């Protein structure tokens, strides 16, 4: 049994050292926004925030997240950057199947917060680790550019 702080609440979950944080979030805590695509760090579908910084939940043993604040997409429902990102993703058709979207949004919010989403080239570079097999990225880049613009206003 480990104690994890997830989206502001302390949770007790059964986890072995070999269980990734992504698996524990999905299978034990029912938080399904976090997806598992590749399970080795390449696709970004599993991004979550650990102490405010994005991390690959597939590459973090859940027991090593003890003592850190875990935030998944579910915990960012009312976050103001996420509100404008969600609206922009919808307006720009920045998703199709949605498998990559949670990870995309978490990466995008971090890029906006760090001031690394100022133009399409910068956004494309920042998305190098976020794989989307549906959209061709144009809508995603436009959406992030728009949300970054909103955040600066």
């Amino acid at each position, binding site marked *: 049994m480990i104690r994890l702080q997830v989206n502001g609440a302390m949770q007790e979950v059964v986890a*072995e*050292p*070999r269980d*990734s944080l992504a698996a524990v979030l999905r299978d034990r805590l029912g938080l399904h926004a976090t997806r598992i695509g590749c*399970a*080795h*760090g390449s696709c*970004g579908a599993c*991004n979550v925030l*650990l102490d405010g*910084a*994005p*991390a*690959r939940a*597939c*590459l*973090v*043993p859940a*027991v*090593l997240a003890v003592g850190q604040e875990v935030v998944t997409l579910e915990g960012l429902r009312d976050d103001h950057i996420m509100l404008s990102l969600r609206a922009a993703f919808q307006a720009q058709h920045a998703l199709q199947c949605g498998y990559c979207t949670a990870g995309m949004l978490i*990466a995008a919010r*971090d*890029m906006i917060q760090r001031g690394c989403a100022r133009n399409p080239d910068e956004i494309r*570079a*920042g998305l*190098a*680790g*976020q794989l989307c097999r549906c959209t061709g990225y144009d809508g995603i880049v436009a959406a992030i550019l728009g949300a970054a613009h909103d955040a600066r206003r």
Partner: protein
Amino acid sequence: MTPARFALRRATDWEELPALLAQPGAMPVAGAQSLMPMLALRMTEPALLVALGDLPGLQRVEQTAAALVIGAGVTHAATEDGIGPEPLRGWLAHVASGIAYRPVRNRGTVGGSLALHDPAADWPVALLALDAVAVLRRGAIKRRMALAQFLTGAFATALGSGEVLEAIEIPTPPPGARFGWCKIAPAPGAFAEAATAVLLRPGAAPRIAVTTHDGARLLTAAPRPDDPYLARLREVAIRRAEAAAA
């Protein structure tokens, strides 16, 4: 893709660390960004992982008279955001920003990259060119070693049993020094197909490091003319350094 079973202990004390690492099948873990994929693919099957992240001083950044000293647990992301004074600050940030992706950089450590010594990794090459020194520690006993001695071969280092990399000392470059970095990779953030780093110091021969199948290596003499790979890398590296800002 599920790793075999293992136990995990978080070490908090340097004195207790050698005993933990002496247990059968024990192995250190830092950011787990290389180890987790290796465990999932069952390329390695440790019985016990000893997490280093809570050890005192592992994330420290200190400027001494002669060097920037960073704990082995300093992350790629911290380095990307800027540690220590210029010009090293900018040079290290430039190298860090090309390693993997931000979520991986937030957890992966400089020490983990050196200790693993993947022959395609960035830090071994960059820090070898910068003439960095590894600080190895077992309990209370420390030894210092130039990276050229520490990096013994692909996926091999001079670390002894029960010993971990505690810190890295990066010498302060002399005035007028310049640094060039060139990484050739199939996509941004991917592992290098080839990489080279060069340190140019006034009045000294260029210090050039390259990726090889045996890991990061110094090009001490001019490469043989019959080795076009090394000759080309050398040429690109020197050109990058000359183009870099002072």
